[in-house]
């Protein structure tokens, strides 16, 4: 009997505990702010007047705008700070106008991996907790617009026509934010991807300053090809200036940089008319052949390039062990701030050219990857969120970001901003923009990229021949993309 009573008591206590837990959870949920009633007179018909009582917030009001922004490079922290500056500016205007509303920007500047950032955003969208403002790569516009996660901004932009710096934006950047005829983002910055080279190593090979200048001139004119670079690598290795596998490196993780090689061989990624993704088989085969020979014939590239840690790459570059690096304009700031490269050493020993064409007669290329501000469809204050983005998009704030992080101007007036002009690197690297191309805005480009990247890894490791790699790419693209891919023979 005692045992039975004790058991029943425990069971009852358990139920009571559960009920108390639920009650506490409900009780600590914040209540909505109380509002004072206001009487508003509204005329509904010409013969009668109806007085309708509505509630409005009493006293000063704070509106919180949430923003998720990303580097991942740490010097790009102004992508978030500029939104806060914009809110500060807006609050001063509102205070001066006697409007008792303040806007507070909260959120995050992400310095982890791109993949984790995008996964986090997807989970936020799905949970209904998306931020008001999202900064991400322009390639995310296609899938997020398809899924209804972001708002088209044409009407928002039209409100400010003739009144704001949107009219001053470098025109080609608007192409990167268009999808199915609408604008879905405001460009935040852009960059270019130079092919860096080390002048000191070329001098160690016996090149004079005139030889280096001649090389640069030919490269900018499209007279040097990717194959010529491999011959220079062979010369450097033969002369013992660099070790085998340490001549020309590319990014070790997923990204868009390696498509410069495909574009350099005349490939295109997207049909401008239909918007479908395109694989140019000939260009892709040439890209794979170049990578294959770079590793296995010229010994200019490591066979385990893909997967190498970023730290190893940057440390080898800063230490002067690599001759060529398919890099980005923002990396100068990283080398100086994070890897302690003296600025004088950068200017003395490093220079750059656009990515040379694959064959004689081609044009040099570079790939630009604009990051863009978007407004979430879940935002309760989309107009205000857009206003913050608009205020953040001005020559001064953008110049602060550009100079500190090594990104390029997006507005003509930014190019002439004092801060921007004082930065020698930005002035010099802006010359790449004439060769700029963009990755495509397509919902399935991620799948396309995964297939190509895997094939690259197979070719560089020696597991796949260039021909097998292209066969694999064609088969997988057809199987996974269906009608959305056009295979060009």
């Amino acid at each position, binding site marked *: *009997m*005692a*045992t*039975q009573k004790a*058991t*029943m008591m*425990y*069971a009852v206590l*358990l*139920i009571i505990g*559960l009920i108390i837990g639920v009650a506490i959870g409900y009780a600590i949920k914040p209540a909505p702010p109380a509002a004072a009633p206001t009487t508003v007179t509204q005329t509904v018909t010409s013969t009668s007047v109806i007085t309708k009582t509505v509630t409005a917030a009493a006293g000063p009001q704070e509106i919180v705008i949430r923003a998720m922004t990303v580097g991942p490079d740490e010097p790009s922290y102004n992508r978030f700070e500029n939104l806060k500056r914009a809110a500060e500016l807006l609050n001063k205007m509102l205070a001066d106008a006697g409007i008792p509303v303040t806007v507070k920007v909260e959120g995050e500047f992400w310095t982890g991996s*791109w*993949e*984790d*950032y*995008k*996964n986090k955003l*997807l989970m936020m969208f*799905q949970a209904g907790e998306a931020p008001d403002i999202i900064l991400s790569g322009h390639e995310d516009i296609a*899938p997020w617009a*398809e*899924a*209804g996660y972001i708002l088209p901004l044409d009407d928002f932009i039209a409100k400010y026509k003739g009144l704001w710096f949107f009219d001053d934006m470098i025109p080609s950047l608007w192409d990167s934010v268009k999808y199915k005829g609408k604008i879905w983002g405001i460009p935040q910055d852009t960059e270019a991807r130079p092919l860096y080279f080390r002048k000191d190593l070329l001098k160690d090979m016996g090149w004079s300053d005139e030889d280096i200048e001649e090389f640069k001139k030919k490269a900018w004119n499209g007279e040097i090809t990717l194959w010529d670079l491999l011959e220079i690598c062979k010369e450097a290795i033969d002369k013992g200036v660099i*070790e085998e*596998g340490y001549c020309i490196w590319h990014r070790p993780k*997923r990204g868009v940089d390696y498509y410069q090689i495909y574009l350099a061989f005349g490939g295109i990624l997207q049909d401008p008319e239909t918007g479908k993704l395109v694989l140019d088989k000939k260009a892709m085969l040439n890209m794979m052949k170049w990578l294959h020979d770079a590793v296995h014939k010229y010994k200019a590239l*490591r*066979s*385990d390039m*893909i*997967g*190498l*840690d970023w730290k*190893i790459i940057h440390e080898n570059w800063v230490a002067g062990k690599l001759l060529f690096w398919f890099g980005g304009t923002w990396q100068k700031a990283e080398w100086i701030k994070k890897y302690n490269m003296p600025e004088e050493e950068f200017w003395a020993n490093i220079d750059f050219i656009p990515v040379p064409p694959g064959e004689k007669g081609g044009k040099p290329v570079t790939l630009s990857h604009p990051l863009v501000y978007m407004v979430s469809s879940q935002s309760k204050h989309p107009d205000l969120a857009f206003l913050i983005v608009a205020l953040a998009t001005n020559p001064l704030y953008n110049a602060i970001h550009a100079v500190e992080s090594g990104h390029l101007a997006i507005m003509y007036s930014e190019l002439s901003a004092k801060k921007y002009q004082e930065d020698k690197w930005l002035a010099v690297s802006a010359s790449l923009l004439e060769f700029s191309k963009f990755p495509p805005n397509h919902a*399935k480009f*991620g*799948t396309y*990229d*995964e297939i190509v990247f*895997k*094939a690259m*890894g*197979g070719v*560089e*490791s*020696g*597991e*796949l021949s260039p021909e097998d790699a292209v066969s*694999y790419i064609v*088969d997988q693209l057809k*199987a996974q993309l269906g009608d959305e891919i056009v295979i060009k023979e």
Partner: protein
Amino acid sequence: MGKALVIRDMPLKRLLTIKSVTVILLIAPVLVFIIIFYFMPVFLTFAMAFTDMDYRFQWNFVGFVNFQRMIRDPLITKILFNTLFYVFTTLLCFNVGYGLLLAILTSLIPPRVGNVFRLLWLLPRLTPPVVYYLLWLGITSPYPYGLINFFLVDILGLEQYKDVYWIYAAPWAVVILANGFVGASFGMLIIGSAIKSIPIDVIRAAKVDGASLFRLIKDIMLPILKWPILFVTAYQTLSLLTSFEYILLLTDGGPGFYTTEVWALHVYHKALSAFGGWEFGYGAALSLVLVVLGLALSILYFKIFRFRELIFEPKVEVT
């Protein structure tokens, strides 16, 4: 002293009602937890496998399309082979094999010393995966960053290893070692506890009869340890089938062309990777195959280890 509860005097119906209600109330919280976090995801995964769900989270049923795609994928055979190779090599060399060896060795030495070694072997399991990965990065990186190459180049003078990045030179070895060091501790603990519960009289009797250490292990300990070894084998097989975090961190399925891509990692790449297109439907279909494979292997183990005999109640009772 109060009167003891006399169950046989109570009506059966009343007894069942009180007992059942009490039992259900007490296990209800855990039951709810298991239903929400185990059975529902399994059910949802099963349903999702027949959809083309992606980042749009739409339930669009497409029948067996995902499975047809799986069969037609030329990489599936390679990934399946990778998975079986990874699971059985890690299982035999570390999770069961080395775990058994560690359990026996640590029981043969004085308990205090044995405990120290058990704790050391638990450290990989206790270390957060990313930290553990960074340690392996520090061990396997090219000279002068990596410990192995520092030892080979600076201590042994073997300059030819200067540039070797061991994760990429010997990816399977690194992956199996990294996972094995974590897995061995589980077997060591389970089997070690079972060894401790072997009656000491049995060991003494065997020694008195002149049994060598080898015969003691082979003829006395191993037969008694059949049940824990079965448990560790089955559990660790299922665990290895679904584990991919260390492979993701170390090689991400590379180097090269799907060299160390195992099935669970392939599911991750397809379903949960921002760059893979968030193909939740296809990923769910791939996961279902893992469930079937796990079930099949469990049934096979039960047959190999003669599970029925293990749980069969002996007809003779020794008092």
